């Protein structure tokens, strides 16, 4: 599903990612942990095509990202807690426009199902984006990210502003989705969350993968930061 070979990225002479190689199979939920500035978001941005690496190759769904971005993008989606959709439009209007961008004609059942699972009130649909709380905004971004039922889902700190209950429900949805051979990559500072949700954990430190394996406890993670 995801194949990265020797990815390097620098900004202004500072090396952010250093020879990162990674292979992710279908059905895996990969949690990326690491201290601030480790290169987690940079890696995710490279995977989504928002950022081009200085060197290295990226293959997603068996296709090279560089030359097949538009084809891959139909099967992929991304959400970040720091992102806001169109501020003066309502949640429903924003989701409708994104459904158009992904060519999803019948997106209402997907939303209804998700919102029911996460126990989110329908009134939120008519709320303007700029009036949403941080947690609600993150949830709307998550909704947007699964509109097209993507085979590749990239989430950047998506539960960061959610309350523990909502966060738990969202993670349950992610787990259920992945039984169907979808792949999810989650960035989270909450290592406990990564441990409970992910099937695999990657620790990035100074732009290098220092751990790649089964999710581990917080106290063990700290040993990799030294």
């Amino acid at each position, binding site marked *: 599903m995801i194949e990265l070979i020797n990815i390097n990225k620098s900004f202004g002479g500072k090396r952010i990612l250093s020879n990162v190689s990674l292979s992710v199979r279908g059905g895996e939920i990969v949690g990326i942990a690491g201290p601030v500035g480790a290169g987690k978001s940079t890696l995710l941005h490279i995977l989504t095509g928002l950022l081009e690496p200085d060197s290295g190759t990226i293959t997603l769904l068996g296709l090279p990202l560089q030359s097949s971005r538009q084809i891959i993008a139909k099967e992929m989606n991304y959400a970040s807690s720091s992102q806001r959709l169109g501020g*003066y439009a309502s949640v429903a209007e924003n989701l409708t426009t994104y459904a158009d961008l992904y060519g999803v004609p019948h997106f209402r059942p997907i939303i209804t199902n998700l919102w029911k699972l996460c126990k989110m009130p329908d009134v939120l649909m008519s709320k303007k984006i700029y009036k949403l709380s941080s947690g609600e905004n993150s949830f709307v971004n998550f909704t947007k990210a699964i509109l097209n039922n993507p085979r590749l889902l990239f989430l950047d700190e998506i539960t960061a502003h959610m309350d523990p209950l909502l966060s738990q429900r969202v993670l349950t949805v992610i787990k259920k989705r992945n039984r169907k051979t979808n792949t999810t990559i989650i960035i989270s500072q909450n290592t406990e969350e990564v441990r409970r949700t992910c099937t695999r954990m990657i620790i990035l430190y100074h732009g290098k993968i220092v751990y790649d394996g089964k999710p581990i406890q917080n106290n063990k993670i700290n040993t990799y930061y030294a």
Partner: protein
Amino acid sequence: MTENPYRTIKLTLIMHNSSIRRIRGLYLHYLYSIKRNPARVIEMFVWPAFEIMLFGFLAASGKNMPTEAAVISVTILTGIVYWNCTARVIQEAVAQFTDDFVSKNIQGILVAPISIGELLIGITAASLTKIAISLTVLGGVLVLIYPSFFSSLGAHALLWVFQLELVGVAFSYVALSVVFLFGERVSFSGWIISTVLQIFSLVFYERSALPGLLHTVSYAVPSSYIFESIRAYQYGSPLVTNSHTIALALSFAYMMIGFGLVTISYNWARKIGTIIKS
């Protein structure tokens, strides 16, 4: 193996359909950006309306002025009304695009399976729709203040509006390429580009008024031909078709250049990280 032509046609139609759908999504997204947004409504309707009122009253009082002053006041009014067609397209395109950088929504949009061409068509269609509404309102204000303005120009008024909007679209692409490179920090690029363009567009004066190099540069600006033609027509000369053909050709050339610049700066932005740092 021979390819089934019906299958090819069907696939092409599906591709076109999905492309139209994506453009519709972008169009709606940018159209919604002004909905219930008081700051943008004031920027688009209220300030231009006040400007039109101010110079409309000046032109309307022209009958009490010496002939030369009356001509100048009508020239200024004509210039302001028509310049809106170009400047507003550029400024609106940049404003709505910059909003996406501020909210980081640009990341969501660019991760979606859209092409740069679809993005530009969506932005252009939305800005043209907003400008059409804005111009209708401004036209209404003008008719109330200075009723003979449009009757003196006749049906050509629409041709000029169309051509000046086309100039606006072409230069909005140049402005958007700047936003791609520098992000929301250059939200003023629409104003800068439209103001610099105005100098060379001969909105209020003849080409001969521009000195040396500025004079030469003005020949490369499509709107200069349109404003010269508008003024000549207002002063009784017949419509110069040649000027409009040159303006049209130049506008299309700039549109192509603008499209190229946006593509280059988008690729460059993915290298330097403008999209993710927004």
